[in-house]
């Protein structure tokens, strides 16, 4: 039997021919025709025109044909909902068939057809199948409830299917239990607050019993569900762990990883002095190592997870360094991950071996791998002090190979070694300087410049070296520019006599010729510092730097905790919380590890740690860099992607910096705008020509500075419309409510003025919302503390959350509110500007933006025009930013500015926008793209409101 012939027909009259064949009397011919249809469907041809003909073949007792027709139906029912109804009868009939395989097939397929009318008919058969005598039908029906819930959640609740599903957890058949657990877990995920998966010791016991008996897949469902449970005390925790550990010997890696997840989580609750705790730790290592002999793809998943486990509990694998040695034939993704773990496990005990390996890797072929290996050598030096000398000499050997990328990578890490061990290895600087010309990557150039600036007093020709970089200043990347600026200022403070010209040159380049606000601001601050108080400048710029910590790329502890709860899943592969890559409400709940119960001390506590032989708490982790303020304060730390963490005592420095900013501003405002004479006082006069072009950049620069001084880096408040009357006194029995919405510090506020226009005192206020499109709900009770006497007004501000129940409203931003007082309950509806829901982290990565923009179909694009808007594109951009509409990129074509912007709604929907602004033309064009095109209209309204106010 060869079916491949069905793939080959591509003649023109194909559809017509197929139609004839489908209506043929001969059974065999019919079947052949359906196969051809399915083949065409697979390769992506549109065969929906054949719908009625194919459905006609459904009434058959040939099961193979029936399955093919069902397959077709699942694909095309949505496009032909009316026709699909024709199939309902057959489904209903099949659900009564004496053959359990056919009953299951019918209910399974019916759940895959997303047509409302069919869904209605599904309920009765499903109810029967959930109670079917045959376990095969029940296990299929259990999954079908999840399918139905995905189509119409309300229906499932109304029909009471959830309770039936819960009953199935006690089913006698283990596979039915497993599928019921899977379905319930999925449904519970979209109802974060419901108590759907009511896990109590009894149900847990049932699950653990089923765990021993069901298929490998069922075991995974059950273990993943168990991981969500929080045991009541350490004894329960231990007894569950004992029953889960046998799973560590399962042949299926996913079962093993899910078991590891449960154990890692429940272990948190065990007292560290318990014998069992130590036993459990020992039991975890072998299965983790075994995962490394699986197929490469699984190895990759395992390694990403081990990376997390090693960060959380380094003791588990500390003796297993060797298994992470890279094999010559490992795929590159496995190699890179192994390398990461090797560095994490490196310690004084094994450092010699590790270094020998790393040196070997540095001569391999793959560029990324070699770079990482070189970097790893540097990290070993920082981590294990005893090995630093050998690391440095290894790095020098590697520099001698003159392989371009190896040299650059080595210089970047040597810079970190200098930071960690000041005044120890400076003898190598000469060798580094020899390679100055070959550096073409920004990071390496920046590192080299930092080294020259930092050790300017020991390098005779430091000024020449830095000057050579200055020639192409504008072609350098920001990272290099900033570093060069700082390095030259350092050089000037160390050797003021010879380098005055150089420093003036770089300051004017940075402040006058550059559009980059970071660079400009840093330039101004140095200029200001140098001109007012060179001694202070020396103290600030040449301040002693805090030592860098040994671990530089640890995952931030709360994120790590969350990821540990997601072991085995995609989140643990990406090292990102699910909310970062899952759309909508699914899986956005943040999971946490349970606290330790026995000793009452947190796991991180160094006391318990050392008592049980656990290494001390992991060192502080660098928060994400890149914001302007952070950058300014860490004057000397190189900008992004370096390993220098911000000084631990930032607060002190921060105050100083703020003062400094204040003073600087005053004098800038006071006299400098005039001619810059004050600036010249303590310092060589800036070029005379400065005066004229000065005012332009300064205003921009000042705005930046004001932002910093005033809002400490916070965005300006979002636009909030003026208050309108929501409930007139006529309708409110004397209570008048006017209000508006605002977003402050990331919290949506509903601001209301309650006015009592009646004759009696009003008390006992309360508020409630109807379900709405974005799940807005009061985050607390309405706070009206004093009774509202006649003719009195009171201002209330009610914080709102976005985790309430969701129902689509029309218009989308409609909110139905009920307010109660001692007199009556009043209902009104109001509309909130959707910009309230724009969240602060709505700035999309450029690359992601591009990919998403391409990925959203053009049908979802909506275009709008905003008239009479007299703003420049930059002003518009900053105004929009205040309302969390972020500009990602700007492009200018033929005098028309195109701003590419992104917005994220509180429920995770992304809206991408292209704003076109033609200079001198008051009409702006906004083009919106979103996967949920319904929101476009509302978003546009917000655009208009924000830009015009």
């Amino acid at each position, binding site marked *: 039997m060869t079916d491949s012939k069905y793939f080959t027909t591509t003649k023109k009259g194909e559809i017509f021919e197929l139609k004839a064949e489908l209506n043929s009397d001969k059974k065999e011919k019919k079947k052949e025709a359906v196969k051809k249809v399915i083949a065409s469907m697979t390769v992506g041809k549109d065969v929906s025109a054949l719908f009625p003909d194919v459905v006609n073949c459904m009434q058959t007792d040939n099961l193979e044909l029936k399955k093919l027709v069902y397959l077709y139906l699942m694909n095309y029912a949505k496009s032909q909902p009316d026709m699909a109804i024709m199939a309902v009868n057959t489904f209903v009939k099949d659900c009564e068939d004496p053959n359990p395989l056919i009953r*299951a097939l019918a209910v399974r397929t019916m759940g895959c057809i997303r047509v409302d009318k069919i869904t209605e008919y599904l309920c009765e058969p499903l109810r029967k199948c959930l109670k079917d005598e045959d376990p095969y*039908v029940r296990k299929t029906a259990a999954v079908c409830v999840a399918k139905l819930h995905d189509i119409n959640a309300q229906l499932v609740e109304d029909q009471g299917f959830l309770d039936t599903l819960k009953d199935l957890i006690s089913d006698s058949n283990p596979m039915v239990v497993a599928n019921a657990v899977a379905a319930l877990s999925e449904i519970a995920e979209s109802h974060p607050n419901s108590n759907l998966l009511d896990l109590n010791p009894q149900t847990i016991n049932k699950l653990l019993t089923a765990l021993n008996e069901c298929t490998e897949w069922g075991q995974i469902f059950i273990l993943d569900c168990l991981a969500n449970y929080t045991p009541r005390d350490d004894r329960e925790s231990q007894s569950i762990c004992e029953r889960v550990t046998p799973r560590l010997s399962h042949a299926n890696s996913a079962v093993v990883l899910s078991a590891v997840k449960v154990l890692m989580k429940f272990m948190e609750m065990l007292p560290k002095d318990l014998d069992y705790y130590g036993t459990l730790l020992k039991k975890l290592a072998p299965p983790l190592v075994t995962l490394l002999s699986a197929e490469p793809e699984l190895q990759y998943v395992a390694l990403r997870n081990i990376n997390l486990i090693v960060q959380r509990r380094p003791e588990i694998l500390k003796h297993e360094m060797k298994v992470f040695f890279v094999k010559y034939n490992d795929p590159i993704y496995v190699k890179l991950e192994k390398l990461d773990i090797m560095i994490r496990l490196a310690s004084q005990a094994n450092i010699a071996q590790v270094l020998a390996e790393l040196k070997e890797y540095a001569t391999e072929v793959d560029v990324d791998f070699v770079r990482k290996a070189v970097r790893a050598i540097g990290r070993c030096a920082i981590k294990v002090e005893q090995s630093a000398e050998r690391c440095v000499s290894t790095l020098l050997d590697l520099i001698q190979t003159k392989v371009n990328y190896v040299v650059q990578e080595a210089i970047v890490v040597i810079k970190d070694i200098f930071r960690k061990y000041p005044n120890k290895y400076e003898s190598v600087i000469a060798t580094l300087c020899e390679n100055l010309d070959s550096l073409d990557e920004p990071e390496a150039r920046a590192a080299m410049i930092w080294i020259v600036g930092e050790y300017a007093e020991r390098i005779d020709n430091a000024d020449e070296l830095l000057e050579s970089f200055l020639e192409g200043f504008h072609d350098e990347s920001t990272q290099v520019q900033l570093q060069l600026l700082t390095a030259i200022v350092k050089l000037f403070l160390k050797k003021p006599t010879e380098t005055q010209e150089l420093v003036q040159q770089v300051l004017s380049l940075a402040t006058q010729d550059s559009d980059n606000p970071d660079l400009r601001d840093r330039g101004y601050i140095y200029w200001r510092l140098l001109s007012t108080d060179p001694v202070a400048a020396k103290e600030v710029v040449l301040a002693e730097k805090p030592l860098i910590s040994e671990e530089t790329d640890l995952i931030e502890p709360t994120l790590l905790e969350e990821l540990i709860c997601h072991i085995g899943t995609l989140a643990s592969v990406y090292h990102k919380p699910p909310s970062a890559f899952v759309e909508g409400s699914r899986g956005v709940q943040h999971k946490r590890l349970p606290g330790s119960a026995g000793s009452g001390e947190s796991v991180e506590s160094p006391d318990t740690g050392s008592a049980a032989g656990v290494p001390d708490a992991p060192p502080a982790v660098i928060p994400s860099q890149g914001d302007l303020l952070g950058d300014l304060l860490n004057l000397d730390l190189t900008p992004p992607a370096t390993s220098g963490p911000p000084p631990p005592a930032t607060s002190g420095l921060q105050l100083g910096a703020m003062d400094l900013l204040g003073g600087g501003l005053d004098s800038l405002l006071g006299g400098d705008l005039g001619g810059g004479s004050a600036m010249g006082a303590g310092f060589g006069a800036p070029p005379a020509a400065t005066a004229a072009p000065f005012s332009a950049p300064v205003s921009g620069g000042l705005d930046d500075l004001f932002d910093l001084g005033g809002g400490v880096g916070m965005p300006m408040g979002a636009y909030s419309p003026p208050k309108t009357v929501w409930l007139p006194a006529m309708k409110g029995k004397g209570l008048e409510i006017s209000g508006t919405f605002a977003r402050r510090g990331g919290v949506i506020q509903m601001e209301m003025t309650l006015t009592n226009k009646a004759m009696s005192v009003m008390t006992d206020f309360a508020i409630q919302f109807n379900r709405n499109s974005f799940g807005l709900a009061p985050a607390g009770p309405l706070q009206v503390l004093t009774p509202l006497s006649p003719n009195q007004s009171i201002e209330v501000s009610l914080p709102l959350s976005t985790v309430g129940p969701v129902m689509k409203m029309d218009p989308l931003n409609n909110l139905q509110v009920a307010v109660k007082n001692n007199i009556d309950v009043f209902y009104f509806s109001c509309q909130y500007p959707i910009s309230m829901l724009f969240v602060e982290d709505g700035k999309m990565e450029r690359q992601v933006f591009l990919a998403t923009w391409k990925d959203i179909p053009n049908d979802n694009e909506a275009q709008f025009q905003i008239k009479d808007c007299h703003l420049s594109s930059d002003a518009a951009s900053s105004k929009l930013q205040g309302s969390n509409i972020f500009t990602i990129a700007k492009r200018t074509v033929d005098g028309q500015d195109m701003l590419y912007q992104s917005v994220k709604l509180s429920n995770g929907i992304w809206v991408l926008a292209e704003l076109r602004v033609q200079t001198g033309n008051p009409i702006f064009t906004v083009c919106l793209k979103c996967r949920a095109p319904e929101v476009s209209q509302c978003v546009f309204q917000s655009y208009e409101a924000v830009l015009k106010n």
Partner: protein
Amino acid sequence: MIGGLFIYNHKGEVLISRVYRDDIGRNAVDAFRVNVIHARQQVRSPVTNIARTSFFHVKRSNIWLAAVTKQNVNAAMVFEFLYKMCDVMTAYFGKISEENIKNNFVLIYELLDEILDFGYPQNSETGALKTFITQQGIKGQCQTKEEQSQITSQVTGQIGWRREGIKYRRNELFLDVLESVNLLMSPQGQVLSAHVSGRVVMKSYLSGMPECKFGMNDKIVIDKQGKGGASDDAGKSGKQSIAIDDCTFHQCVRLSKFDSERSISFIPPDGEYELMRYRTTKDIILPFRVIPLVREVGRTKLEVKVVIKSNFKPSLLAQKIEVRIPTPLNTSGVQVICMKGKAKYKASENAIVWKIKRMAGMKESQISAEIELLPTNDKKKWARPPISMNFEVPFAPSGLKVRYLKVFESKLNYSDHDVIKWVRYIGRSGIYETRC
């Protein structure tokens, strides 16, 4: 859960496409083709995220299998499922090739419908599947009621891997201990890492629902018995036992029993299956030692001398020995002299391949080669890949020994003695490398 499953040929044409979830559109099929199969750079991860959709892929010869999802699925499970899917397809129609997939596409859709429901993997044991999904179409019509319920209870039951009522005239068991020994050795002969990953593969042809018990010279078990029983041979047995680092079992093995008593008991599937996998790192017998000597003579010549020594009982014979000595990319010519076997320079593989058919234990053999190089301007040094080796030996390098395999079937009238049992040990080279 899994939102869709696609199978592509090497050109990126889709052969099978099954969508399980509404959030996966047809464009996902193209997204994978464009971003992974046709990607300009080699893809650097088996998991790819394209516009918030995650793709998992595995490749079998030149066929791509991709699972797609928009949710935070269990990633390990998805890969395990993809491998399982390959196993099931292989069990049904042999090698996974474009031709076989096209020839069996209806069958594949049927299987996909059965083993993945709404993206949740269901029973995927071929033994069970073959009872009701066949290449000749489903048996549906002709089954009796008893047969039907037998099928469903097997598919959902506790012993999903074996059906009732199997009968053989001769009850037979074949047990293979297959080990692959892995080694990474420094040029100086220091063992950098070595481990054995072993598998116990069984072929069982037994009637009824037999209960089996498998025993081996596991150190933990032997020590326990040594403590309880006579202490005189404790030292001796301790020497002969091996320390198993970790082992995993086929789903038929009762894991809780292994955890508590360390005994391996199970009802075996019918036919061939892998009973267990294990890993050892201690006291490994390394069957061969490779001693390399590479000397660079000027910029255009290399002298290589490699000695191999066999390290096992002289009465045993190793087979299929192959030593692979890498040569630089700019090799222009090679002269080889070897004492035993045949050696050839293979320019396309950049290696000298030295093959020896058989070699007894405690022997040694040697090859020497002169490699001439073309002068190049390339500054980069030759990376010197390790010398690798392949072989097969008739013993288990880990030292594992099968102590017993008992069969109990209470309902039928055959006993453990009536079962014919065959045991075989094969040790193969895994990644067996010596740096030079």
